[in-house]
């Protein structure tokens, strides 16, 4: 039995994931053609702008690992960012705004999980339903208008630094670390691999897979709440279309990062690289003054390119 093990793919070149190749290529290309791309200010800008996406892509990784999907994340983010704006405006407290946003996100996430786990509705359809609901509620609570005049304490989140590092980046790093520990060093994380890989195994281990699944979706909602704070701080207002289409970028980042949509094969660090790749792409195209419609198309292209490299690797 030993022989089979030593014959594992050992070529280190084959082990370099597609997302790393893609990221290096992107940086090289934009570094040479986009003016000012490699300036320290712009690199900081890319990282800061990627933080909202990171908040969504981390839990999206877990959800996709369960062979699920959350299409509602962008719309829920819109809703939570409005909650941050409205609550902080009414109370003057950033923390109350954040707390309310996390709570609202958790409700949406739990509903998603309940629809998928308990009612057995396919994730695509269930979260499409909550997408519509969250978008509609956002229009209702904002009356279709931007919520302006929010307290400084919210706006400062985006501009403040800790030891020279922008606070949003600190929040993203802490979130990444928390998700790393959650996925690789807790029981809950271990069972996420089983939710996608072999749910029967959980049953034979005497574990309730439905409750675990609901918790995974709820985590996604709560992170959309945290992202809502960053979004409102960044725009200095609550806007009823703030998160439009962000679920697409989040799913793209996860796919680019090498997480498979089947059998619980996920890679959290790949997702982080995928988020930065999406951020680099959008920023580079911006610097080259290309319209945002091109950006959406290129993110789609990015997914295809990264998966192409992964496909090459797994076939060889």
């Amino acid at each position, binding site marked *: *039995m030993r022989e089979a093990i030593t014959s594992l793919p050992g070529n280190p070149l084959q082990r370099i994931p597609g997302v790393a190749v893609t990221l290096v290529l992107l940086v090289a290309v934009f570094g040479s053609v986009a003016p000012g791309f490699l300036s320290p200010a712009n690199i900081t800008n890319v990282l800061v702008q990627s933080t909202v996406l990171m908040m969504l892509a981390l839990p999206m990784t877990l959800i996709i690992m369960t062979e699920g999907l959350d299409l509602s994340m962008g719309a829920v983010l819109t809703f939570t960012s409005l909650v941050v704006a409205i609550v902080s405006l009414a109370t003057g407290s950033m923390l109350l705004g954040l707390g309310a946003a996390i709570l609202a996100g958790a409700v949406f996430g739990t509903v998603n999980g309940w629809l998928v786990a308990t009612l057995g509705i396919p994730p695509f359809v269930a979260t499409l339903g909550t997408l519509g609901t969250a978008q509609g509620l956002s229009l209702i609570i904002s009356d279709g208008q931007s919520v302006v005049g929010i307290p400084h304490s919210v706006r400062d989140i985006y501009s403040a630094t800790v030891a020279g590092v922008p606070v949003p980046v600190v929040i993203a790093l802490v979130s990444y670390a928390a998700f790393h520990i959650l996925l690789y060093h*807790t029981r809950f994380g271990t069972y996420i691999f089983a939710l996608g*890989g*072999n749910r029967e*195994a*959980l049953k*034979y281990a*005497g574990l309730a897979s439905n409750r675990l699944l609901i918790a995974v979706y709820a985590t996604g909602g709560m992170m959309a709440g945290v992202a809502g704070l960053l979004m409102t701080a960044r725009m200095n207002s609550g806007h009823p279309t703030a998160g439009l289409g962000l679920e697409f970028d989040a799913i793209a980042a996860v796919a680019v990062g090498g997480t498979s949509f089947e059998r619980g*094969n996920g890679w959290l660090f790949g997702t982080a690289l995928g988020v930065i790749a999406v951020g680099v792409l959008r920023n580079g195209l911006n610097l080259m003054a290309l319209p945002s419609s091109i950006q959406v198309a290129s993110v789609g292209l990015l997914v295809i390119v990264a998966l192409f490299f992964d496909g090459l690797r797994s076939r060889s």
Partner: protein
Amino acid sequence: MSAAVQPAGDAPVTVPLLELRGISKEFPGVRALDDVSFAVWPGEVHMLLGENGAGKSSLMKVLCGADSADSGEFYHKGDKVRVSSTADAQKLGIAVIFQEFSLVPYLDIGQNIFLGREPSGRIPGTIDRRRILRDARRILDSIGFNIDPSILVEKLGVAQQQMVEIAKAISQNARILVMDEPTAALSDRETELLFALIARLKADGVAIIYISHRMAEVFALGDRITVLRDGRRIDELRPADASPDQLVRMMVGRTVDMSYPRHFAETPGKVLLEVRRLAAASGISDIDLEVRAGEIVGLCGLAGSGRTEVVRAIFGADKVTAGEIIFDGQQTSGGPDQAARRGIALIPENRKSEGLAPLRSVADNLVVSALRKLFPSHLFDPRRAQRVADGLVKQLRIATPTSRQMVGLLSGGNQQKVVIGKWLATGAKLFIFDEPTRGIDVGAKSEIFALIDRLVADGAAALMISSEQAEICHVCDRAYVMREGRIAGQLSRSELTEENIVRLGMHHA
């Protein structure tokens, strides 16, 4: 029942470690277990023997608490206990190693062994992954499996996964270990390792319930043999008191309705299908067979012996790696669409998922495969389709109020007729049936066979997979018996008995 096998250094054992009394379990339409009693003593290997559908899997599910019995009692060391969940079974030290593994592909070996029982780490809420690896290595060493526990299960072969399953059971301190055909996927060397491990477990006083189809194993390992048939316990005996032939006789003889008609042709027609030294990527090799017009030819063997793989290769659904398939005088290649166009019909085992569009009408289902033939102009004529469908409904005596009825609402037997009719409309000449009577009630079975009989009487040919050996014996002109991906032998009409089929299909001592 002299307790010949005693755990070392203990007082004589007078009560079984686990005893089941009068276990019955019914599923809609099937009596899966009928008053089965069964006992295992510590330190013995109890062989469970029976054909497909004899009740072995049902008994295993009841044993491990995944299914609960309708009636019957469990006794653990003489005390009456309840086993109504997998947790109950685990508490009694029962662990089952299923053929479909309960492993998670993208967790490592250690995490799989301790799934659901992870030791806590120093930081609250975390798990101690280093300890998992350390403990896993110790357990793997104890069963003589030398592998790094930090390797993902995804990277392992089937045999290695089997060993991880065993390690998982050992780590739960299993005292009663149930193994379902554990050597099915193992090489000879790996089988030796497993047998050595079983000997060590026996010496430790572990009771092992071992399901096998291989006679050699039954006699090499078994301390006690229980034979099941039709959900009933036929006999319990010691290997010394049994012979392979005797066991085979006990396993066969299932009660099957024999009232279906069959008109055997005096002389079979021309060769319609000829398969020469066929091999396929799915694991079959050296397949030689022929089917003549007017014949029903059986393809038997145990589940997993490669029967379905052979018909899939003939139909072009699996990649053929060697050999040739000659149909109606022409060598064939290409996919299922090619095979269907040439006149080969495959009636799959899972009618609902593979053979029918259950939400569409009887008429739609009947004409769907023949669209090209019925409408060469590529324009659909609903009236013509309706006429063809109505004709088939009448010809096949499909019991449906109208041909507009949804197929999913028909009985199993009538659904099967629709699948056959669908191919009849295309003018198929060779009908391949995979378990044609599965899930069909007795009355409808004889109608299906009457239909197949009429098909071949009209010049078609049929190749039929069935696990119901009595059916094969009753309706087939000849039969091929498969074992481990190869044809183990051919039985002519006069040799076609259940005993001969089982004998050829099993490993003989």
